[in-house]
């Protein structure tokens, strides 16, 4: 175990990520004519980024936030509004969406620093809840949210002279593949950096983390910022792909399904969120003909999975054994501390 183990793990995580993306990249060769499947794949890629950045803050950093969809909406709206106001390319819009949402994430993170557990969930959920009346209000209308109606037209995405359109899903798919890969690569880098270890240390024991010199304040804000920024960026992409935005996305449905993605994929298990997103979408679509019973089955599934499969789908592929990631991280820090001590003496 120890450093060698960690290195192995890093290689393995990157390997899984590359393998999944490699497989995904092949799919359009077989299915490019299947609009329905391509659409599900594209949406899965979008939700995967949201779930992945949510997992970064909730699964890895252990901060119990419910504000992820709020950041998605903030990113989406600011991306579209900026594009419409200044006539900039949607590509920049995505960046702006990420920056605005990241800023919002840090702002929301500030009051959360002093709070614990379910309180953080509540404060972040509060952002989610008050976003809707705000976007629908006269203030919202004034900044261009379109009020209750929402934004009905979004400037189209172009690359060179090619204009992305709904009839051709393959370019969308590859674009999203690249964007989501970048997002997941960032998440991967963060998880396996000193930041990432600090997050995990903070999650498992704040006292312990502080004893090895992790600044809780700083890292919590950073994780809020990164997670919100990635989500906000993909919010812009989402708005562009579906071609419109309204506050209805703040409803309960998306919130629930994202949670299911996290549980299914495996919380705090990179890249569980990515797998979780695809599997959840496929289960959801294949259960669709059960009408009302679909969500009953879904609910049951969630309960069984949480209890019987605590590591999610990724735990099936890579069982963690008895040593959880928690212990590994503690060991990692123990070793570091020991080395430091050795160097001093």
């Amino acid at each position: 175990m120890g450093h060698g183990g960690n290195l192995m793990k890093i290689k393995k995580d990157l390997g899984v990520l590359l393998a999944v993306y490699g497989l995904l990249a092949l799919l359009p060769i077989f299915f490019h004519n299947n609009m329905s499947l391509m659409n599900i794949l594209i949406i899965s890629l979008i939700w995967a980024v949201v779930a992945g950045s949510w997992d970064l803050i909730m699964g890895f950093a252990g901060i119990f936030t419910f504000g992820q969809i709020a950041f998605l909406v903030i990113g989406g709206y600011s991306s579209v509004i900026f594009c419409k106001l200044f006539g900039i390319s949607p590509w920049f819009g995505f960046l702006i969406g990420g920056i605005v949402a990241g800023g919002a994430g840090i702002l929301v993170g500030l009051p959360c620093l002093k709070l614990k557990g379910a309180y953080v969930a509540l404060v972040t959920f509060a952002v989610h809840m008050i976003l809707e009346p705000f976007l629908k209000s006269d203030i919202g209308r004034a900044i261009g949210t379109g009020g209750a109606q929402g934004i009905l037209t979004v400037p189209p995405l172009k690359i060179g002279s090619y204009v992305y359109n709904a009839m051709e899903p393959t370019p969308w798919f590859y674009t999203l593949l690249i964007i989501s890969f970048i997002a997941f690569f960032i998440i991967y880098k963060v998880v396996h950096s000193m930041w990432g270890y600090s997050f995990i240390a903070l999650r498992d024991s704040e006292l312990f983390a502080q004893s090895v010199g992790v600044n809780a304040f700083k890292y919590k804000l950073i994780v809020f910022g990164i997670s919100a920024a990635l989500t906000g960026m993909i919010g812009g992409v989402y708005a562009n792909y579906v071609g419109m935005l309204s506050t209805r996305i703040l409803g309960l449905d998306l919130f629930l399904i994202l949670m299911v993605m996290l549980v299914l994929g495996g919380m705090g298990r990179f890249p569980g969120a990515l797998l979780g997103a695809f599997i959840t979408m496929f289960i959801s679509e294949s259960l669709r003909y059960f009408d009302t019973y679909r969500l009953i089955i879904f609910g049951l599934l969630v309960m069984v999975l949480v209890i019987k499969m605590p590591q999610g789908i990724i735990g099936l592929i890579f069982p963690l054994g008895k040593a959880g990631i928690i212990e590994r991280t503690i060991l990692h820090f123990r070793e570091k501390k020991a080395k430091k001590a050795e160097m001093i003496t």
Partner: protein
Amino acid sequence: MLKKALVRITVIAALLCLSGTGWTADTIKIGLPVAVTGPYAGEGIGTIRGIEMAVNEINAAGGLLGKQIEMIKYDTQDFAPERVMAAADDLVGKKKVHALHCGWAGWGQDVKAYGKYNVPTFVVNTSGSCIEVYKSNPKQYSNWFQMTGSERPFGIETAYLMAKLPHNYSSNKVCIISTDDSWGMEIAGGIVDGAKGAGWEIAMKEVVPYGTREWGPILTKIRSIKPAWIHVEIVSTPDLVTFYNQFMENPTNSLINFGYGLTLADFLPNMEGKGDGLLGETLVIPNPPPTKEAGDWIERFKKTYTDSPAAITLSVYTGVYMWAEAVKSVGKVDDYDAINKYLASNKFKTIEDRVVWFNEDHSIPTEIWPANHIQIQNGKLETIYLSGKDKKNPLPYADKTFEKPVWFK
């Protein structure tokens, strides 16, 4: 270890990809992207029943072009844009349905999603937003058919009707309460527009979120204003019934109009016989039915489903017949452009013996589909007025007349 994992990933992926393949039977397929779970499931049931009734009748009479019609449902849940897109891709792209009958389908995202294809698509939206999206690219969305016009004229006509009622108003003050979605806001806007011409004074205009159950502060205001007319436009039964119950604790001499809410499927059952004198507007068949055919239709519906038809039920039912007529005339179920063209350029007869047609914005304007002004009398919905040729001049209908509400002192 990595190899093993790769194998496992592939197996899982392969299993997932083995989801359903298409249908091959020789039937005509229609897609029903309708919400059957979540907050819109109530309207969804009314929609499915209307389509089902029409399809069963056509099938029993030998089918369409000699083929049976098969319905394929898709649960659109909350009408999130990506979900509506998925519905379109699944039903049209994958299942290759020959038409879509949707009922209430959204606020504009539906135009884009279904307009991507060219199979005829019928919606009952009453949505200005959809018309706006349609107008942005009429060629692309030529398969889009909206069974009603925009919301605003309802509000305008309501303001004129209320002024016309044979009732001694104590003042000309009106209080408007609506939800913060585009339906509520547009109707409220229409009333404000109509109020100017009809001589009303807007004494209060409140916007409330869905799920409001405690009306104390608003009722306090109403009691100090003592308006002649209170209009509440909320498409949600519990919100309306709680308003009524709390209003009745200490009522003022005001008429109350619940707009579309009066015909929600669960509204009357939850009023439990109360509410005589409440007014409303909708598109259901007037009572008594104007034709024998319409009367029979209602009887058939009640027999099959033991419920009264909702406003949306007749619209979707009519939509199926309009589409069937177009298919018959074209002679082919998959010549979509010809069918769409036929639908856009012809007039159709309804069971109410009315002639309807799609405007240049592919909607049937409210002028053609006249609004039906109803009042609860003896626990039942009775039509008292029907809109005439002119929005400003609704005409008395049949022998029922306006009655003074029970709460008047």
